[in-house]
């Protein structure tokens, strides 16, 4: 059976390029520096080589940044490198993140050719004023065109949406969800906008130029997604993720199950044999280190058995199915009851956790308060 200490069966590759940086974004990326793509690909090859030999994986995920910001030939080179080092088992899942702007036929065709079978499209919103607030460079027409093109060869399409955008109304969010549903995607992710330290949004909010959405409104928006999406066959399977049956993102489920994974590229994390290593978050530092033959790792932590188990509770509760006690004991070597029995009972009393047979899971209220619950287990 697969446990956190088994050899990883999942790999993530980070592509740190974007046309420009959106005001709320704190991801690892460089904006408007596409000329670094060549160096990036060479460095990535260096990092993949550290595997020593090609590895077989069941899921691959290329995220960013914007992977499709790479020119078509660069994109092919990336996929070629991955094919060389990361062998996808048959029936495996291969996801790539894409942005609606600049997703050309040529790029989609390349993705298809290299076996990409799932694309997660950064739609965020359909409304021009909100896309403007978010500083996104696409408009509704780009979204339609992108989905059209993806339909040409990608079987599993996911749309990313953002709510609680400054100025957004509940009505607008309803329309956004409905519009997304109407495209008939296999999967939808909904993210409440957060203000991260170091972003332009953070600074603007500090100065009082930008107002974060009201707590109660944000709650209503999240509840609306939880109500509306399942009505259209998109079942919630994680706090921010909804999918048709069998279309859940298997790669991301590896994270929430507390299992191992490889990671490549700046800011990427790997979790191998209980050690989590996060590559340096600065793109240029990562590049220089790879070019100098140094390690890319910026931060690494080896979790204790208990630390690993506690983290797994937190992550496991993010999944709608929750945590099975038997499975948990087998995977983490400790009994859920011993580790957190008292905390679980308190959360049950507070109405935030449900127990059903072997499983514990967040209630609907618990999903709205997931961080409050998480703090209790960590």
């Amino acid at each position: 059976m697969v446990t956190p200490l088994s050899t990883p069966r999942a790999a993530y590759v980070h592509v740190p390029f974007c046309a420009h940086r959106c005001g709320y974004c704190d991801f690892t990326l460089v904006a408007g520096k596409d000329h670094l793509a060549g160096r990036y690909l060479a460095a990535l090859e260096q990092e993949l080589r550290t595997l020593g030999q090609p590895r077989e994986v069941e899921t691959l995920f290329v995220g960013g940044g914007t992977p499709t910001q790479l020119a078509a030939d660069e994109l092919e080179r990336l996929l070629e490198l991955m094919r060389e080092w990361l062998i996808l088992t048959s029936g495996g899942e291969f996801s790539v993140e894409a942005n609606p702007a600049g997703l050309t036929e040529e790029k989609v065709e390349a993705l298809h050719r290299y076996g990409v079978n799932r694309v997660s499209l950064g739609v965020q919103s359909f409304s021009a004023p909100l896309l403007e607030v978010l500083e996104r460079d696409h408009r509704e027409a780009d979204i339609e065109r992108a989905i059209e093109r993806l339909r040409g060869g990608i079987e599993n399409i996911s749309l990313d949406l953002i709510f609680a955008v400054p100025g957004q109304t509940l009505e607008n969010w309803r329309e956004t969800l409905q519009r997304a549903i109407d495209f008939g995607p296999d999967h939808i992710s909904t993210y409440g906008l957060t203000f991260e330290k170091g972003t332009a949004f953070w600074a603007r909010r500090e100065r009082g130029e930008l107002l974060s959405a009201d707590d109660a409104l944000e709650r209503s928006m999240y509840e609306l997604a939880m109500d509306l999406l399942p009505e259209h066959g998109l079942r919630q399977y994680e706090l921010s993720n909804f999918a048709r049956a069998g279309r859940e993102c298997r790669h991301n489920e590896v994270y929430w199950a507390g299992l191992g994974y490889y990671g490549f590229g700046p800011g990427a994390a790997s979790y191998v044999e209980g050690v989590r290593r996060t590559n340096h978050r600065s793109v240029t530092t990562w590049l220089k280190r790879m070019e100098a033959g140094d390690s890319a790792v910026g931060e690494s932590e080896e979790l204790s058995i208990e630390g690993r188990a506690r983290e797994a509770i937190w992550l496991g509760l993010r999944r709608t199915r929750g945590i099975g006690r038997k499975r948990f004991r087998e995977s983490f070597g400790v009994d859920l009851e011993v580790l957190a029995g008292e905390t679980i009972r308190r959360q049950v009393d507070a109405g935030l956790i449900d127990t059903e047979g072997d499983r514990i899971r967040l209630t609907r209220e618990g999903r709205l308060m997931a961080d409050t619950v998480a703090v209790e287990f960590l």
Partner: protein
Amino acid sequence: MKPEHIRNFSIVAHIDHGKSTLADQLLLKTGAITERQFREQILDDLDVERERGITVKARAVAIHYTPPEPGSPTYELNLIDTPGHVDFHYEVSRSLAACEGALLIIDAFQGVQAQTVANAYAAIESNLEIIPVVNKIDLPVTRVDEVLEEVETILGLDASGALKVSAKKGTGVEDVLDAIIQRIPAPNGDPKAPLKALVFDSKYDPYRGVITYLRIAEGTIRKGEKIKFLKAGTTHEAIELGQFRPGMVECDQLGPGQVGYIVTGIKELGNVHVGDTVTHAAAPTSSPFAGYKDPKPMVFCGMFPIDATDFEKLREELEKMSLNDASFSFAPETSDALGFGFRCGFLGMLHMEIIQQRLEDEADVGLIQTAPNVTYEIAKRDGEVFLIDNPLDVPDVGRIEEFREPIARVTFILPASNIGVIMQLCEDRRGVYKTTEYLGPERAQLIYELPLAEIIYDLHDKLKSATRGYGTMDYEVIGFRAADLVKMDILVKGARVDALSTIVHRDMAERRGRQLVKKLKQEIPKHQFEVALQAAIGARVIARETISAYRKNVTAKCYGGDITRKRKLLQKQKEGKKRMKQFGQVEIPQKAFLSVLEAGNED
């Protein structure tokens, strides 16, 4: 050492006028310390004090100096250090009692300030020869002439012999040494008379036990002799004898006029009383010193361990503090809200901050501190009169004949243009106007009598902001006075949190109540339910606020690269929660208990 070659003096000054720098210069010029040591303010040995530039604990340094003139004898100059802050008035007086003279330092730009006045008066009362020293003459802008005029008009001192120095650059320091020898009287005293020495300070040393600071008035003390503390009535052996130069240097005897220390094996600071007389056990003096009153703490606050199991640890830490500082007191108390803790007494706000800071630095105990309050005197209908240091001890209104609070006489020195603002400030705080005196065209001295409670509440901060830092103040408690005082309670989600109760004047209760619940609203985090905050006098609610419920708390994105960072954030939140006190269903952060005090800085 012959008395005629001894000079005993203090340096007194308003904070930051350069007392420590000049003291160091004197040591440097006489070779007692090196240039490198000069960089460090060696007279202050507690970190907190250095940060604040305040010498809290008086110390004495013996400087040996031979003037350059051929044939000059070597002099022993004993510099007895004094604290500069209002909270430590009594320490100033007792240090001055061991001197014949004082250097009064005045900043060449800032001129006479409130603590200059307070310190100068203390020196005058002790009949000392006072040498005015205008310091910082190297500053680009100085007001030396006006400053000298201030010395004459406010302090009534002859400024014609004032010295002008730069302690920083070392300019004029020889003149200071010269003036100490020429102008300060030598001590007198018969070396053969029965021993009579004044205890003017003490400190605790972990290796030697209590170190007692002595100024010999008459007779001679020798190592190994049996000595007696007259007031305490205890007899000990003078195990070790010495002087600070500035490190401890042992010697065999100390004669009339000399200043030094003795080690007697006494282990507790409380057993050595400042003002006591040390004499020979076999042939005691017949004229002991009058002694001092022990200073009474006037400001109190509660200190509670966040983690109840730390109670004993906290007690040990507080004991350690009081070992070093006899004017700090503490006694166990219990609070419904905070559990078991201690009621701690301080001389004033600065004293409180210093102790708090030291607890934070040295003790590994998470603390919740309640807002400070002053001591009150209550006269009951049945004739009983007693002091309380905790708002919870206020008896039923019906049984109180008179509720009295401590009143202080406050001296402000400020730019004349600010008089109006400060008078308004005092009137708003129930002040009684006394006098105004102009110190020159631009500066004035204003005297008010104000309730001590109002002073500790926010007066100092308000003064600083109203005068853009140019105003200074000093106060002295003069007694208790009856006032219309009431106890104000705070209810959180309908239940009284005893640790938030305060005593306020009835006329101000509503305003304070409103400010306080508003402040608490900012301090207490949202919960999953609404939290009502109310201020009440008896059963009457005078102010209220509501903290709305938390509606959503969930991190949207959490994938491989986020896990470590997000988990650390959540763990930090958890740490934060540990610092909160669970009160019913409501979690109240540590800081909220101080809101009572900070509420005043809002408007």
